[in-house]
């Protein structure tokens, strides 16, 4: 119950005060989309503080891991075509997850340092992918340029707010 209620609070206050490791509040800290040529298409942070630069840096570092994961597939053959790349690398307070679409668009999710269920993450990424596809289908969107649609930003906020509140079996 606590996790669900925490998600409904606006990103800033709850996340900053509960910090790492505390009573199970799942905090998505930042989401980002990077294009084929590693050009940033969208970056949205959900903490109150203005840490955009730090997140740009984290996202930039994670791009190398994408290439690494793609060129060294793990032993199980199923991972070759998998869009969800899983945990890319852990930093001091954050975990970074990656998702690679077939068109080489990379989605990056930075969360606070707790254990997260893979099913929640996969769910999140597939909803996020859906929102991205709808935003990219806008005839006024130029592929390769930043996504400026406010409707997309709203959808992303909704998806982030409902993260982790999938009904428990």
């Amino acid at each position, binding site marked *: 119950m606590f996790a669900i209620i925490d998600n409904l609070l606006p990103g800033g206050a709850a996340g900053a005060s509960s910090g790492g490791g505390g009573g199970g509040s799942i905090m998505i800290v930042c989401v980002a989309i990077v294009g084929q040529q590693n050009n940033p298409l969208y970056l949205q942070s959900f903490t109150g503080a203005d840490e955009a630069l730090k997140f740009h840096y984290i996202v930039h570092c994670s791009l190398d891991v994408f290439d690494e994961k793609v060129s060294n597939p793990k032993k199980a053959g199923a991972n070759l075509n998998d869009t969800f790349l899983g945990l890319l690398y852990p930093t001091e307070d954050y975990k970074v997850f990656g998702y690679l679409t077939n068109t080489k668009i990379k989605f990056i999710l930075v969360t606070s340092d707790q254990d997260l269920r893979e099913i929640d993450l996969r769910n999140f990424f597939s909803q996020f992918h859906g929102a991205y596809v*709808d935003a990219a*289908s*806008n*005839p*006024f969107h130029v592929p390769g340029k930043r996504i400026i649609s*406010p*409707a997309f930003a709203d959808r992303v906020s909704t998806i982030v707010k409902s993260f982790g509140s999938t009904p428990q079996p």
Partner: protein
Amino acid sequence: MAPAMRPGDAAFAAVEHVNAELFTLTYGAIVRQLLTDFEEVEQVNKQLDAMGYNIGIRLIDDFLAKSNVTRCSEFRETADVIAKVGFKMLLGVTATVSNWNNDSTECSLILEENPLVDFVELPETCQGLHYCNILCGVIRGALEMVSMRTEVKWVRDMLRGDDAYEMRLKMLDQIPEAYPYKDDE
């Protein structure tokens, strides 16, 4: 409403269907190309209307053949047929007719949903654009082929922040049948 709804659904079932996303994306590409070619929003609006007119004059025959509607005795019936049968058959959505004026020569067609505008958001540079202006042209062209001169304009547009799509349909006059050959030749 029931007798008017059924011909619409029957007509919808009788025609071939196309993938809605393909249709939406194609229309979006047309509008984008027009904006690149003409650059001025008013020009693009006029072009969309002209394109719609050309579609409408050809579409009316196809529509009348496939939908089996009877001759309309007055403009009210015409508006109803456009809203219930025409939109249903060609776009898969029904429109509602409302706001008649006293002479029954003007009315509003209101669309709650519009497949042309899925995924679309107007950027700041194109705020004057009537994205669906092609629909106005289609209706104008189609009605001209059945001897009615009309004026069709957008009143409310969801892309500009209103809550629905509303077209104002005004009948100007009936065009008398003109024979191509002079009587005394």
